[in-house]
């Protein structure tokens, strides 16, 4: 059993847990986008940041991957944490203006507008990669992958051809936190897509 502190509260954790798992266990809410119990964490969205340390030394880490340790002192709502979250949400709002899920999440954290111009009003995908991971790790077919790199990165089927590998299970649509997957499935699966969207979409 590991003893640690989250937001001033003394809490206990099991060896091997992450800070996020511990917080959830104790009813402390930390927002996440790219985390899902079903797949390996990837640390892409950075929304789940927390601050660890004390007055003399502290650093910002992601709770979904940071392992618990005896005596760890975690703040889930410090000024540094709020600043990271604010800018991530503001940037994602501009990136994916078409996602109601994202707008709701941002509003929950006080981000209602964004200073940034949107490049594509139809966009909903935040590139969290959950669909890719669930397809590879859970479904086991790897019909989807990211294509391109850096600022040109996109979600597509491998090499951007319609993927015959897709078994139309709808897992990607289910894990997608923004509703983007139901919209883009047509492009990936072609004919089968409608079926999937009906089955898994909302």
């Amino acid at each position, binding site marked *: 059993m590991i003893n640690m502190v989250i937001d001033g509260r003394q809490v206990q954790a099991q060896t091997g847990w992450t800070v996020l798992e511990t917080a959830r266990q104790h009813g402390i809410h930390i927002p996440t986008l790219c985390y899902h119990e079903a797949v390996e964490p990837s640390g892409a969205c950075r929304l789940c940041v927390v601050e660890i340390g004390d007055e003399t030394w502290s650093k910002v880490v992601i709770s979904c991957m940071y392992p618990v340790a005896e005596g760890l002192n975690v703040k889930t709502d410090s000024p540094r944490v709020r600043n990271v979250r604010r800018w991530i949400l503001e940037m994602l709002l501009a990136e994916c203006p078409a996602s109601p899920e994202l707008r709701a999440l941002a509003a929950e954290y006080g981000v209602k507008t964004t200073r940034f111009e949107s490049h594509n009003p139809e966009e909903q995908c935040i590139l969290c990669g959950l669909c890719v991971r669930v397809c590879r790790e859970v479904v086991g077919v790897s019909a989807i992958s990211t294509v391109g*790199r850096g*600022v040109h990165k996109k979600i597509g089927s491998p090499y951007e051809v319609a993927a015959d590998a897709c078994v139309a299970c709808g897992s990607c649509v289910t894990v997608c936190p923004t509703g983007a997957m139901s919209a883009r499935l047509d492009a990936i699966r072609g004919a089968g897509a409608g079926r999937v969207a009906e089955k898994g979409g909302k």
Partner: protein
Amino acid sequence: MPVATTEAASAARLNSPQDLASLRDSILAQRDPNQQEVIVCYGTGCLASGAQQVEAALKKSLAKAGIDAKVRPLIKTTGCRGFCSRGPLVVIQPQGLFYQKVSAADADEIVDSTLVNGQVVERLLYKDLQTGEAIAREEDIPFYKLQHRVVLGRIGTIDPTDINDTIAAGGYQALAKALYQMTPEQVVSEVERSGLRGRGGAGFPTGRKWKSALAAIKKKGYPAYVVVNGDEGDPGAFMDCMVMEGDPHAVLEGLILGAYALGAHQGYMYVRAEYPVAIKHLTIAMDQARALGLLGKNILGSGFDFDVQINRGAGAFVCGESTALFTSIEGRAGEPKPKYVRSVEEGLWGRPTVLNNVESWANIAQIIEKGGEWYASLGVPHSTGTKVFSLVGKVNNVGLVEVPMGTPLVHIIEDIGGGVPGGEPFKAVQTGGPSGGCLPYDMRDVAVDFDSLTKAGSMMGSGGMIVMDKRDCVVDVARYFLRFLEEESCGKCVPCRLGLTRMREILDGFSRGVGSEKDIEDLVSLAQAVQDGALCALGGSAPNPVLTTLKYFKDEYLAHINEKRCPAGVCKDLITYGIDADKCTGCMTCARQCPQNAITGEKKKPHVINQELCIRCGICMESCKFGAVNVA
């Protein structure tokens, strides 16, 4: 093992330190220390400026001069001497004569005057920047005299493709010493005692890294991997390239020593694909070392086995980051992973792995040979030893320099680098590459060591130094580095993938005179979010240039947004070119050069620029011999 010729020696395996010593003796015995040697720099810079033609011409002239075979000077090609801006370079030994900007046409004169008649060719000598006096010997030139070369010590004296040259210069002595007189733990302790900190950027103490690797190996029971990071990707940086090309055995010997210390049997050298010569020289070095039994099975007869493989970098800057480098070696796309488990415990293929930079590895053999204490006596207490810097930008002596840690910035830029062309003080210097910071002239006395640079808001990084003068705009500089990192971002995490672009867009606005003080506030706050939030150090350090230029040059930012003015005369939307009627002689040069035909005027009468047509390319200003074109 008495050997008759070096050729025969190369073929025979060395099975003990005595074998190595006798090979060295036999190589030295065949050398006459007074024999003339013509050294042609074959570094990338000199090759680009014509070293090959110079070498060919020298060979021809020598043959023509019919110098007796016995006393015929030897032509040797070496790695980069660091003073590439003066290339092609030719050095004549044993006198140490330094000929710069040599062309093939100079070959006959060099042979006749210097080699045959022992005279110096005055016109090829370096002239002192202040006094204009010619300096004959390399070691008397301030650029070299003021350096302290440890890592670069052998470069320029040895032929990197001939292991005998390295062995003659003392190569592999440290390896023999470690294998036969030291335990692996003693090797680790020696490195720890040296105080060496990683030269790849983060400055992590190498000895401590090795020690925790030893602990992890014990815990997990796996052998470790040792890896060389030769991915050098900072724009303008070429120190690791120079080391791998010019002294590949220093890197290799360091790596074998590390492998022995950590009980590793397999190593990797991850080398940037754009460095074909480095890859070639490392490959030759490995082949020659293997043939001599210095690499492979049963090294030097000690029973220790270790081998190395070269991996070509995938061509992305981010692949130099440790976790991305490992995934790239494993054959997957090089993307960083959060490393809350350290790579000394779980690195390559999940095994304990020690990754060090080229320059870090290249220091190891000398530390083992001369002792950690010797190394720690160089430099300053928390940054020991020397560091290689690549000095570029608005500085007279562009090149690679090595100085003890803690050397004042101004000493490097003005005394070694010869200051800004034209003699005015420098405006700023960017240290640490695109992830580093920009320090103003006021900070010129800062000691160049890990902690002092960090305290000043910049960082050591891998050792890039870009000198700027009053014609460099800090907003433009910050934009340039951000744009570089934006292109290099792997795109995995949100703060970096989106944040760098958004920061750059704000700066784009400033460069057009669009922006407010609120935008500056937002920029700083966003920069801090990116620093705190990014997954790896590419994104985490990307805001540094923006934050340091804002810290030290805020007025210049304000001039852009409040006065719509770029004081350095760089941001195209905020400047106008004009012609000073008093200075203009009406020579018409600018009018002919202007790509827009925006300049008109009669011969011998002052010219004028039509602002409607002008695209602010600045060609007129460069072309005017009378300094009549100005920018405001």
